[in-house]
């Protein structure tokens, strides 16, 4: 993938900690102190119980492949075929990502395969959490 030209996220006050985390090699999630719900994407309150008493923590980075498609059309930053994946994090939430270190084929991309986060620096500000097949 030619990562230089892919569209990059524009952080907001509510998500700055997430992107600061990826810069430092941490996948930061939020947990509600009140009801223990772990959630993503970031918000300064719990989307389950609305409590503003929440804490940030570094996730394990372990995940499994939940679903994906393989796009057949190259776009800036992406050489086709490339998979757009959703991974299930060990802590519960799911997130969209790309799978690296793995052929972009249905044979190589098996649902539920174990994955681990692979931080990919895109710019001084933005490091994206991509995922690769787990080595364990």
């Amino acid at each position: 993938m030619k990562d230089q030209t892919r569209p990059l996220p524009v952080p907001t006050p509510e998500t700055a900690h997430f992107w600061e985390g990826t810069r430092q090699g941490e996948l930061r999630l939020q947990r509600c102190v009140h009801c223990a719900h772990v959630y993503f994407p970031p918000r300064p309150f719990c989307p389950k119980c609305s409590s503003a008493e929440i804490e940030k923590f570094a996730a394990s980075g372990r995940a499994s492949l939940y679903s994906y498609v393989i796009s057949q059309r190259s776009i800036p930053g992406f050489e086709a075929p490339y998979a757009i994946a959703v991974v299930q994090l060990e802590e519960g939430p799911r997130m969209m990502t790309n799978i690296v270190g793995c052929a972009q084929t249905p044979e190589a991309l098996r649902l539920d395969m174990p994955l681990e986060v692979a931080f990919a620096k895109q710019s001084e500000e933005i490091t994206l959490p991509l995922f690769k097949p787990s080595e364990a």
Partner: protein
Amino acid sequence: MKRSRAAVVGAAETTQLGVIPNMSQVQLHADATLNAVRDAGISISDIDGIATAGESPESLAHYLGITPTWIDATGVGGCSFLMHVRHATAAIEAGLCGTVLITHGESGRSGIAAAGFPVPIQGSLLQQFETPYGTTGPATMFTVPVLRYLQRYGLGEDVLAEVAVVQREWAAKNPRATFKNPISVDDVMNSRMISYPFRLLMCCLVTDGGGALVLTSADRAKDFDRPVYIVGTGESVETPMVSQMEDFTTSRAFRVSGREAFKSAGISHADVDHLMLYDAFAHLPLYGLEDLGFCKPGEAAAFIRERNTAPGGKLPMNTNGGGLSYMHSGMYGMYALQESVRQVRGIAAAQVPDVRISVAHGVGGMFAASSTIVFSKDGV
């Protein structure tokens, strides 16, 4: 069945469908409107409420010469027009307006003064947490949940092809359908891969067109020719981010909207003679049949394979050919409504015998929103 408060008394699509290079988006709205108003036998000056999506209500009012006292610009994508029917029914019942015009027009193919597919707001959660991973629009977003669905129920990719094949059978009966030639499962499976597991013939068309509806109260509707009564409605939303759906094998918005519509109509599934399930991609009828309760989870593919939704089947579905074969301008919901109305009136190209109740069910965004309308021939 519960008492109906409002009815469709005028319904029409644009004069042409497909490729309309000589009309801008707003003119597609106007062309459909003039056809629908003529169908109702009223004049534009009788309209006091307007609802539309994709085009602003003020540009629509100005262009058509309407001075409305009630406006709905709910814009949640393709099912917006179904929501407009629901909201207009409530507004008519509340006495906010008497005659409502709902319009759709989209230069989806020719792109003449067209709104186009919405670009995510910079810094929105969608832009931060989905766009960076190479999404290019519906073909790479709407499709993301399906592998999980297929795996959960032990189904192959060919079930998506079977949806397209059956809908083409309906399209073959419809002179206005874009694609009418019969296709086989092999044809679909061998068509060009777009976004695995979706091949070209599992994806909707991209066309130009429009449609319009005229609604009034059920009491006034008795004075019109072939009124189609609105007896049940539902709506809901879930999330603009497909990656954040609660469950990739079922749509919460579909379930909530469908349940509301059936409950408010006071009907059971056995009462439904005809069904329209918005099919931007071939997996949507599978989710729709299950989430509306016509099939148990995981059984919709077999239900379609056993020809229950095909011509001659017990639940004729997407009888215009659907977004896969009839037309799909981008926000298809209006065409699902139009076909339901035609079937209840008894004037569809592929007319199902004696349709008394038709259900139209739509989706907006990528499983982001949903709305369901129950139409009846009987005013109750």
